[in-house]
């Protein structure tokens, strides 16, 4: 199996990348629980500190590392500085053996200055999560508190983005869903592509593959993997969010962040026309990853 580069010098960033609502946060929790190996689960609001991770789009992180305020910069200026920011973060970090984890929902691409947004020279590798776009469309709609037509259009638009000027997050360009997938699976550093559905079906095995790819100690320790998976069980996360709230919940969302988590929601919620729209835009990429291109939705069963 392909593996990430070993952590060495300033090469220490492991990207956790995905289109939004594709299991990125759950994977971070799985890894946080795996790395902590503690008897108690990592709380949903403690992921960052538990696994020394950053949100690559976070303004507070950018401002604290850059030393200037992102809100004084144009979107292009801030974006063009981000490779230098993550490079500096990697250089200054005291941690020497385990990667620094950086979450992103952005497509792999260049900055306006023409430099890769995700610089190869600080990267050990990327775990890229891909999820059936029909299910993504449903989950994204609930997260945004928008209709399914809105989220389907979002997945199909090359110009889709989140954050930016006036937002608490820096601008993140997503491309359309297929463009996002193709950008990451073609990145120039080691990328482990994980289907969300596979991770859901056999979480212990796939967490082990992720840990092995990232060269984490204990990657073959079955008990440790099982404990991390149990600590990250969906029902537990829902209970945790219900009790404490969760800082990543959507601004306008009326449903919990950990809402459903199941595979197959797309065809239960989307109309046949909405399914056809997704298939027309993404059928080829869906087929590449083994997703059914059968044009049935809620209306036709």
């Amino acid at each position, binding site marked *: 199996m392909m593996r990430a580069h070993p952590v060495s010098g300033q090469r220490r960033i492991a990207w956790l990348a995905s289109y939004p609502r594709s299991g990125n946060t759950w994977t971070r929790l799985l890894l946080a629980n795996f790395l902590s190996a503690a008897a108690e689960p990592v709380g949903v609001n403690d992921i960052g500190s538990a696994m020394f991770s950053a949100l690559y789009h976070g303004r507070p992180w950018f*401002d604290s590392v*850059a*030393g200037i305020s992102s*809100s004084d910069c*144009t*979107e292009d200026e801030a974006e063009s500085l981000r490779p230098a920011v993550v490079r500096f973060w990697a250089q200054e970090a005291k941690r020497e053996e385990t990667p620094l984890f950086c979450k992103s929902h952005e497509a792999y691409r260049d900055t306006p200055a023409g430099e890769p947004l995700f610089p190869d020279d600080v990267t050990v590798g990327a775990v890229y999560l891909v999820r059936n776009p029909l299910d993504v469309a449903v989950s994204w709609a609930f997260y945004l508190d928008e209709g399914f037509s809105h989220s389907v259009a979002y997945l199909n638009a090359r110009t889709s983005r989140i954050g930016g000027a*006036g937002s*608490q997050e820096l601008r993140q360009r997503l491309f359309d869903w297929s463009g996002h997938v193709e950008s990451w699976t073609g990145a120039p550093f080691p990328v482990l592509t994980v289907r969300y559905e596979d991770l859901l079906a056999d979480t212990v095995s796939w967490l082990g593959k992720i840990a092995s790819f990232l060269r984490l100690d204990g990657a073959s320790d079955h008990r440790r993997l099982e404990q991390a998976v149990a600590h990250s069980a969906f029902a537990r996360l829902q209970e945790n969010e219900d009790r404490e*709230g969760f800082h990543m919940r959507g*601004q306008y969302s009326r449903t919990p962040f950990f809402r459903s988590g199941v595979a197959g929601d797309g065809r239960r919620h989307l109309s046949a026309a909405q399914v056809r729209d997704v298939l027309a835009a993404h059928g080829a990429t869906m087929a590449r990853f083994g997703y059914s291109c059968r044009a049935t939705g809620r209306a036709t069963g």
Partner: protein
Amino acid sequence: MQQTPFTIDADFDLSEAAAPWSRAHGADVAVRRGAVPLSLPRPESRGVAWQHAAGRTLILTPCGVRFLVEGGSTIRYALDGGASLADLRLFFLGTALSVLAAQRGLLPLKASAVANGEDVHALVGMPMRGKSASAAALAARGYPFFADDLLILDAKGLDAEARCYRCDDLKVWPQALALADCESLGPVRGTSKYRKLYAMPRQRAARVSGRLRTIVYLASFKKGDASGDRHSTHLERLSGRKKVETVMTTIHSRPITIAVVGHRPLFQWVMALSRRVEMLGLTRPEIPTVFGAGVNRIATLLSAAESGTVQTRKGAAP
């Protein structure tokens, strides 16, 4: 009493708000266009956009404005790559002035503020939590606008009182103009890619200094809260370690200020400030339709802070 803690002789027009700092002759600080290096030899500390060595701080902004701030008394600047006077003014009255203040033994806070007579109330929080818009909206509710982005404190006098100074104009995002009940005065920077606007609040404080009485840390319910629904506000009085840690997060250009002042002295300043001011954490919805209700809550809170009757309990938005 000196009106400002130092005076500035700049070879470009400072903003109207910074006019009290300006002196044509005999100023404490000279600001001149000149040669500014791209790096400093043997920097003691550095970040992506700055370097510090031997009492000199180099600031490299992504728009092409560079500053060399030296010994708390001179600032040289250079404009490259199409940087405009508006860009210069923005970064001068923010990052460069905060570094200059730190070099002169003053404590720069990233805060917006309103005043009531001699009392000043600062609004702090993470980026994009509505500090400026809230200050402007409070100006329409009887609390004259005092400062935006940078509030400079007399760190050495903190044992006696928390005297603070303002120097910059109000800046808001276009979508906040109506919420904040203020008028646009035009773009902040010389590029259409930057959307923030200078704005005129309904009332402005005439004074340039005041006594910092309250710091309100603004957070939002977007980040989830089990204690209530998403249309309510939640207030807590911060104390002890949490208070000190929160003040630390509000330092302007924090990594540069730490490099200039040093961890230990800065921590001592923050401890002194924490003893001197009341600090309240206000969590509110981030939904525009209830922004005004959240500002009403802040106004009520400031009034209570002035009379010493703050009740820290969850409150439904009116």
